[in-house]
């Protein structure tokens, strides 16, 4: 039997080789796409964003009604041709109020995450990186901050400064950054552990740069998930504040305000409570689904 030379080239293993390698984000996107709820959520969010951006324009070109204009003669009517979702007790068009309400909810919900990143991210970064006493101090501070129940803290803050879009925005931002701070700190600590072992051998180039450079790709995923879940929480806070009456003030249409107004006439026209309620629920659900989808897509353990 003729024998091959032992150094014969390896048979090409392309057909039964290692499963194809894909980049992390491509893989994440693919897995996200497979999650139907997450995709549905994403679609809804896109619609909401478009609505928020275009609402003002649409009023100007006459496609939808002015949300503040009162038609007293049409108080609390049901759906009609002119007012697709009816009117509230002051005769204002419900549909347009809903659409403008989206603006407020989305603006606050999404932009507040920026404050979280700013405050929470910085504190987490500093605490994790500095370690020792600084870390200890900052974590104690975080614990104290966390001891305030969030709604109460926001209420206290808003009561101090008169309610307005800005004060609500700042209040919510100041209250809830703790989760992000802890997350970032945890990531920094775990990277520090890995890096310094190797860096001990190499000539120590800026450790901070190394940590930062590794922090971003590793931590980006969980941070995005946390922020995504932070959006419905912030939307809830704004709506709750407005509902109680210490948030957005009428006549500006916020969904929370609409629910409060609708409550007054709940026996006569329950739909005025339902519409904004459903709007809030759908918005919060959509972001939650996206958050779930992102988290599952990023989870290495779920690879089958």
């Amino acid at each position: 039997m003729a024998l091959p030379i032992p150094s014969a080239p390896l048979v090409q293993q392309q057909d039964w080789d290692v499963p194809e390698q894909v980049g992390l984000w491509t893989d994440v996107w693919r897995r996200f796409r497979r999650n139907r709820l997450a995709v549905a959520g994403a679609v809804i969010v896109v619609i909401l964003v478009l609505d928020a951006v275009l609402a003002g324009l649409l009023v100007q070109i006459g496609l939808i009604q002015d949300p503040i204009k009162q038609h007293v003669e049409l108080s609390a009517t049901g759906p009609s041709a002119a007012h697709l979702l009816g009117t509230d007790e002051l005769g204002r068009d419900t549909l347009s109020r809903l659409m403008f309400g989206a603006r407020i909810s989305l603006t606050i919900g999404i932009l507040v995450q920026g404050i979280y990143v700013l405050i929470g991210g910085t504190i987490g970064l500093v605490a994790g990186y500095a370690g020792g006493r600084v870390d200890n101090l900052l974590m104690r501070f975080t614990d104290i901050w966390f001891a305030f129940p969030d709604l109460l803290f926001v209420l206290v803050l808003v009561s101090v400064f008169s309610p307005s879009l800005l004060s609500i925005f700042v209040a919510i931002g100041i209250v809830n950054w703790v989760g992000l701070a802890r997350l970032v700190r945890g990531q920094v600590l775990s990277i520090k552990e890995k890096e310094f072992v190797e860096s001990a051998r190499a000539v120590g180039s800026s450790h901070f740069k190394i940590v930062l450079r590794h922090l971003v790709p590793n931590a980006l995923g969980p941070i995005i998930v946390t922020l995504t879940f932070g959006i419905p929480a912030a939307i809830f806070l704004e709506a709750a504040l407005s509902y109680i009456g210490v948030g957005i003030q009428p006549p500006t249409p916020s969904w929370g305000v609409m629910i409060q107004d609708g409550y007054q006439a709940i026996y006569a026209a329950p739909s005025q409570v339902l519409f904004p309620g459903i709007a809030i629920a759908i918005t919060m659900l959509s972001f939650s689904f996206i958050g779930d989808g992102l988290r599952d897509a990023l989870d290495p353990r779920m690879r089958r």
Partner: protein
Amino acid sequence: MANTAIGGRPARGALPVRRLLAPSSRGAALALFVARRVLWMVPVLFFVILITFTLMHLAPGSPWDKAGGRQLSASIVENLNTRYGLDKPIWQQFLLYLWNVTHFDFGLSYQYQGRTVSALLVSAWPYTATLGVLAFCVIVPAGIGLGVVAALRQNSRIDYIAMGFSTFGASVPNFVVGMLFIIVFGVMLYNITGGNYSLPVSGFGLDDHLIMPVVTLALLPTAFIARLTRASTLDILRQDYVRTAWAKGLSERLVVLKHILKNSLIPIVTALGPTFAFLVTGSVIVETVFVIPGIGRSFVEAVTSRDYPMILATTVLFSVVVAIANLVVDVLYVFIDPRVRLT
């Protein structure tokens, strides 16, 4: 870190005191642990009071500005200030306040002339406590039960229903849910039964007045616990020791109770701490929706009328409740997980 000099004797400066204080048994270590945690609560609460107090006094305007524009005369304002001690320097006011707090004196309410904050709190407390306790009694069995069943029958219909419910509960704001209940069980039920019956939509009573508020209050925490329980149980199901239990030939009941649940419920105990925070903030909303004269509602009123003593006291009270709940949970955790080191 050369701690020993030649001969193995501890180097100078290594105090033997540490060893004296080291606990000899787990019981002693536990007592030390609890004491340390209780002591830790003090500075936290101190800062809570400090921060809230500072915020109160940062507010523009004074508590005497009535919404509606009617200004009080200067002399009356001055009198009121003196009476409420608002003319003293801030740090003095703060120290005085701290001193009073330790004697459970929270000052006089601004909006209800002549009544002490403590009295107001005491009269409002039972309503909130009743709702809270009842809600807790719903949350624990319902949340854990749903989570466990969903995990054990993963991807089945009951799993989807349970998780769908929990997603709903976690994503729909409690005041919206409250409104929905009112619409369905208040308005619609009223119409359907021709005006004969509906669930009461406001007020408090130890009867069916309690149903809607308690369920509304319990919804979010139940959803939260259900999700957590499901995740924890699923995680445990994957563990090697569950496979070992099956390999020993144990019955399903034994495997589920002694091996799966015994492990998966441990992290749930930790979740009971934040549950109290949910109950606290939830009560603010639920009492507003259902018009129940509890502490949550008083808080809202205090906020809108800038009744600073009331705001301060309620914040402190709620923070204390949450802090104590977390403490109890942490201690409980040490009892149920033998792996936890107490040092």
